[in-house]
């Protein structure tokens, strides 16, 4: 049994990267491995918004990650700098930046790049989906 972390940089609805990531995540869990953390960076942070409304007959990636995170106790972390730039903000960052709203999905956490470095140091494998 191995411990994995994933680095996801793909724009959720513009390319296949996040679909591949979530499929990989589900498969490794089915095989009995552990998924410690999924770190969202660059365009990957966009999935952390709770305001997505994809067509009903298509996958909702935010909900799919959230479901996996809750069922399997996985940390979903979006990088604060990448998120702020791209308009993904929690209550605290919205206040700090005097923004009129916030949109972070509750299954995700906003944190720093240190969480990625830590995931590298504490996982057996880090796989990037971009």
């Amino acid at each position: 049994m191995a411990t994995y972390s994933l680095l996801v940089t793909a724009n959720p609805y513009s390319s296949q990267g996040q679909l591949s990531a979530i499929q990989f995540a589900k498969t490794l869990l089915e095989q009995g491995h552990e998924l410690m953390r999924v770190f969202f960076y660059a365009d990957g942070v966009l999935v952390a918004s709770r305001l997505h409304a994809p067509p009903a007959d298509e996958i909702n990636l935010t909900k799919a990650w959230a479901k996996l995170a809750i069922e399997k106790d996985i940390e979903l972390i979006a990088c604060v700098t990448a998120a702020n730039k791209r308009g993904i903000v929690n209550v605290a960052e919205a206040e700090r930046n005097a923004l009129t709203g916030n949109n972070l999905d509750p299954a995700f956490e906003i944190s720093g790049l240190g969480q990625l470095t830590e995931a590298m140091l504490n996982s057996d494998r880090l796989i990037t989906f971009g």
Partner: protein
Amino acid sequence: MKSLYIINQPQKLNQALPFISEQDGILLIEDAVVVATYGSVQANHQTLYVLVEDLIARGLKDKVGVEQWNLVDYPQFVELTLQYDKSVSWL
């Protein structure tokens, strides 16, 4: 160390090849799987893999050059990431 290079765009394979060592593996996923269906790749002894779910999605499963390419599914993809010491996504 043996590395698994994960390539997800067709044009990235040739860009990555100069940096991939003989003992490494190369896995094509997403749009890059089309590369496994035409011509032959100037690989240098690397083991070549292609993700079958991405082939099936694109209607390409029967067009793979099976002399060069090993078809793997997602469970085998996970196994490969453990078999190789590290995975490198060449974006």
